[in-house]
């Protein structure tokens, strides 16, 4: 039956698009908050982190889904951790080789992808009970939902905190008070607590537009 099902049938597409809004991993499922907040002071590390997490979720989902009928239930957590840890080591080595400066900036947070709850959450909730292709789509979808939040938060924090985007200056130098202008960067934005407040505001905006997500 699954052979006849189109690769991008409606059901499969839903797997891909749902996590962008209705079941966003960060703002709805509350998974993977730690890294989302810590790496978003600038846009570039946020994007690198988002890509790394998406890759790890997608492939971990596929591997666990392939193994799902052979893993004994009692030791599944450790099997999942081993698969994830192996993938994260690969990602870490690739980052160190090709984007060393970003890898330095991310410091321990690359390693912390291992304990990123998105991974365990999706493996437990989806990959253990579904076919590889669906699991792959689910991984990509959740990675993209995670990426969306990271990019929004990183964009605003870098814009207001450093006056630049992706390292390029947006606010002209001549506007700054130091150069006789009127503008000053908001130093609060690059400090950790503001990340929480920015995410809080994103949740607020999302839930006012999508009222079925409101909690009582």
């Amino acid at each position, binding site marked *: 039956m699954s052979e006849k099902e189109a690769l991008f049938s409606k059901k499969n597409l839903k797997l891909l698009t749902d996590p962008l809004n209705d079941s966003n991993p960060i*703002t709805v499922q*509350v*998974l*993977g*908050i*730690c*890294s989302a*907040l*810590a790496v978003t002071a600038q846009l570039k590390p946020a994007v690198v982190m988002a890509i790394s997490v998406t890759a790890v979720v997608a492939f971990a989902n596929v591997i666990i889904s392939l193994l799902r009928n052979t893993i004994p239930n009692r030791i599944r*957590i*450790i099997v999942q*951790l*081993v698969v994830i*840890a*192996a993938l*994260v*080591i690969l990602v*870490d*080595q690739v980052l160190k080789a090709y984007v060393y400066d970003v890898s330095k900036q991310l*410091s*321990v947070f690359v*390693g*912390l992808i*291992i*304990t*990123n*709850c998105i991974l*365990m959450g999706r493996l437990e909730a989806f990959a253990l009970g579904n076919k590889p292709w669906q699991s792959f789509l689910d991984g990509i979808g959740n990675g993209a939902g995670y990426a969306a939040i990271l990019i929004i938060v990183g964009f605003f924090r870098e814009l207001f905190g450093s006056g630049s985007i992706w390292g390029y200056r947006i606010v002209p130098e001549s506007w700054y008070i130091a150069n006789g202008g009127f503008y000053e960067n908001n130093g609060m934005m690059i*400090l*950790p*607590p*503001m*990340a*929480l*407040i920015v*995410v*809080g*505001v994103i*949740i*607020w*905006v*999302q*839930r*006012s537009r999508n*009222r079925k*997500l*409101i*909690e*009582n």
Partner: protein
Amino acid sequence: MENLINIFVKSIFIENMIFAYFLGMCSYLAVSKSVKTATGLGLAVVFVLAITIPVNYLLENYVLTEGALSWISPSLASVDLSFLSFIMFIAVIASMVQLVEMVVEKFAPVLYNQLGIFLPLIAVNCAILGGALFMQQKAFVNVAEATVYGIGSGIGWFLAIVGIAAIRERIQYSQIPAPLRGLGITFIVTGLMGIAFMGFMGIKL
């Protein structure tokens, strides 16, 4: 001694796991609805960090870093296994958590019932692995420093989760805009607590 106290205070207040690094956020948000469960989870985290950090420290310094294996035979001095540190740390954490769970179940059934589901979940709490990775970065000189760091960061996490749980219990009776209820307001309150904790940053130790 002075050095140990410095590390202790620093890891609780200045480098607080939650407010400075956002580690262990997921369980922090999920389990902070009542002070009682928050206390249970907080204690479990202190406990596990106090055990896993020194164990990982020994592993790091006697097995993984370059030259660490020279205590077996001098010919192994050039072996560098540090790329394996993630997988080793997480294996140690997962197995220590399992061990702690069995010991607690056997010798303190009351505590075991209180901690319940939280104990196994701690294996995937980023605060634990994060603690191990920061320990690796900070390069402590001996195991006592690493232990104190583990206990300190556990207590910091404990304080943060009990604090937010108390606030959330009170906030239930407040008029909050509907879309902000629950998760949204918790984020903002945590942000404000984080700003308050930043006051400690000025302390030079």
